[in-house]
């Protein structure tokens, strides 16, 4: 709701910024790294409200931040699960760990992550759609 087109008082802005860093799972800023990797020109936010809440760019990955990295962990988790499965066939003590990882990767933790970050992903996608471009690689 702070993203509504309203005049937010400065003290409320500071509070929202702190709150948003928790709700968006923002551990560290990846915007500069993404810009450097994909050779992107840095962009300004849509307006001050967006800037306050951490949507400092119009690019999808930049706005997603650490949350995007959390989705990238899944292929690694799948590999770990596969390797644990191979070990569990020969070692009974690893079976419990393998089952716990298996049921977490397929699909409980992924469902929970999508549930909790649904609005964040939706807003990042929609911001990107407003300035969508296929003219460069990044």
């Amino acid at each position: 709701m702070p993203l509504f087109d309203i005049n937010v008082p400065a003290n409320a802005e500071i509070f929202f910024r702190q709150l948003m860093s928790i709700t968006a799972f923002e551990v560290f800023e990846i915007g500069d790294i993404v810009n450097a990797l994909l050779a992107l020109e840095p962009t300004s936010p849509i307006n001050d409200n967006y800037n306050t809440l951490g949507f400092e760019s119009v690019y999808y990955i930049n706005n997603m931040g650490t949350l995007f990295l959390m989705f990238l962990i899944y292929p690694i988790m799948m590999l770990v699960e596969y390797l644990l499965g191979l070990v569990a066939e020969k070692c009974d003590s690893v079976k419990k760990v393998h089952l716990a990882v298996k049921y977490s990767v397929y699909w409980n933790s992924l469902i929970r992550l999508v549930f909790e970050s649904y609005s964040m992903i939706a807003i990042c996608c929609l911001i990107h759609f407003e300035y969508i471009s296929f003219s460069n690689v990044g």
Partner: protein
Amino acid sequence: MQSILAIISFVVLLAFPIVSAMLFWNNFELLTDKEVMLKYYAYYTDLDLTESAHVVWYPVYFMLRRLMLGLTIVFLDQTVIWQIASKTTLVLTSVFLVGKIKPFNDPFKNWMEQLNEALLMFVVYHIMCFTPFL
């Protein structure tokens, strides 16, 4: 690349709630099975599975209302009246749905959901004080 990724993410966001609800609706009797719960319980945590299979559609509303909020925030950013109107509509719809269906297995959770919506309504009314209208 980011544009393609955003499009794929958006399609997944749209499809995920509907496809999963249809799957759970068609296999409703299996939802209390231990094996299924170990895999998919995160989708229907705290939902009341004893009354009706329709309850598996509640998470669809949960997610689509967030999508709706995103749409109004991004594409109606110059018209705060529509943003407030859509938020009010979503809150009222949620109050009606939770009151009518009572989707959660614990009455306290249903009551807390109603309280949550009431507080949201309270905030929405106060947002009007920060619009250019006043």
